[in-house]
């Protein structure tokens, strides 16, 4: 019994070391991205301008810009680094010496790469007095990141890119059309449908909360995003550890 406990403890200690090695590696080889940082500054400037635009509703402006421009661009530019060829993945598995650490190291380093953006958004939305919008943006990025990592395992890179583009650009746009249609007809959206819309277009769904169109609160939107992110993350790690390579 003692022997097994010792071996479990050693294994878990070894795993944490390997995960930290994996994180160090992805930080070393992937960051910083000067191009992404420049893009970040541009996107945040656009977000700021969308608040000051006197010809549109400030709230709508920032919702639209954040949902259709800022979140997709940030996720796409940071996430594309992880679309790696099989030969590079096998190299990295040997380098780190553990399959799970490579999978989780990639995902965690992607999440950490959003830290500068998230900190700027925190300050930004503190002045905008909408903490829930900030949380929806963060959870939306986490959920989209999990889907991007899952997509990165599609062997055909064009297919992987299509899945990513559909998730970060197409589905939010389609959800916007659905929301607009319900709103123009003044139809109340069912909680189940609202949950789906929170998943793909959380900011715009939140913008219609309290308007009799969306009755599901943004708190539930956060839960939906969180649950979906955990499922996508779990599937990603599972698929990564089971993927087949043909060198």
């Amino acid at each position: 019994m003692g022997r097994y406990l010792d071996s479990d403890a050693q294994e878990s200690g070894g795993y944490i070391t390997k995960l930290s090695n994996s994180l160090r590696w992805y930080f070393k080889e992937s960051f910083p991205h000067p191009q992404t940082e420049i893009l970040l500054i541009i996107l945040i400037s656009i977000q700021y301008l969308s608040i000051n635009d006197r010809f549109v509703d400030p709230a709508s402006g920032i919702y639209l810009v954040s949902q259709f421009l800022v979140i997709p661009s940030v996720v796409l530019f940071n996430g594309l680094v992880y679309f790696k060829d099989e030969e590079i993945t096998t190299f990295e598995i040997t380098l780190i010496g553990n399959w799970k650490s490579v999978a989780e190291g990639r995902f965690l380093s992607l999440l950490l790469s959003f830290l500068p953006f998230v900190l700027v958004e925190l300050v930004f939305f503190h002045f905008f007095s909408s903490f829930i919008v900030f949380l929806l943006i963060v959870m939306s990025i986490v959920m989209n990141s999990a889907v991007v990592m899952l997509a990165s395992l599609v062997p055909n890179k064009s297919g992987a890119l299509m899945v990513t583009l559909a998730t970060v650009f197409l589905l939010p746009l389609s959800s916007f059309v659905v929301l607009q249609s319900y709103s123009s007809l003044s139809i109340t959206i069912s909680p189940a449908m609202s949950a789906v819309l929170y998943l793909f277009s959380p900011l715009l769904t939140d913008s219609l909360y309290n308007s009799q169109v969306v009755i599901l609160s943004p708190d539930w939107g956060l839960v939906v995003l969180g649950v979906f992110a955990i499922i996508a993350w779990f599937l990603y790690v599972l698929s990564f550890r089971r993927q087949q390579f043909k060198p």
Partner: protein
Amino acid sequence: MQIRCRGLQVSFGDSVALHKLDLDINAKRIVLLGQNGSGKTTLLALLAGLLRPTEGEAFINGICPYDERERSIEELSYMFGVSRFPYGIRVKDFVQFLQKSRKCESGSIQTFDHEILEHIMKKKMNELSSGETKLVEVFNAVYCTKGALILDEPFAFLDALRSAELIDRLLKSGREYIFSTHIPDEAEAVGDYFIVLDKGEVKWSGSLDDIYQDGIFEVYLNSRNPPSFDIIFRYGNIAIVKSKKESLNDSMENGQILGFRRAGIRRVYYETK
């Protein structure tokens, strides 16, 4: 290194890469040979746990690598061809990362010192040539790792001097490995057991003693003075001949040939073609 395969089959759609392969090998330095598309890399990928068989089973040192992936990556280290690294970091940073993360624990064998990368330390990894990329890959597989090595054409693209240095270090390390190559001289330099694959099947397997039979020689021809004896097979200016040592000695004294030795892997290539 113990390799055991039973009825191992790997298919990709209609194409069969390995066909009902049975192997039972216990040797320290195994070399895998065969023509392009013979199934060498597929077998190595399977033994590394990167690929599952369509049918059958495989074990390496008692581990089923595709079912026990985490255990096998602890016990084995492998390299497959990378055409180009996407990393913008310098080789020096990569080496520092390995030094910090692997820590050369007891039981690991520091086969290669980082001095073999000294000449490219300042280069960025995405700017390395094919040979330099290969060198970094080999280093990643062997530096401060333990257990058996699985190496897919590790010295391809390397110049003769560099590959000679690496072969020397590999042999001195005393590590066990399975190694694929197309180069007969390289195979004989690093191996003590050989497997020749053809269309996913084992065409021939055996040790160096099985290869070096008396009466069959590799002869280095003198292009200015063609030989009079019968040639079984010819690889450029190297010919496989069946002859007696005395008559070959005479031919060498006459200037018909430059030298000769007992036929090795080239003879196996010819006999299994």
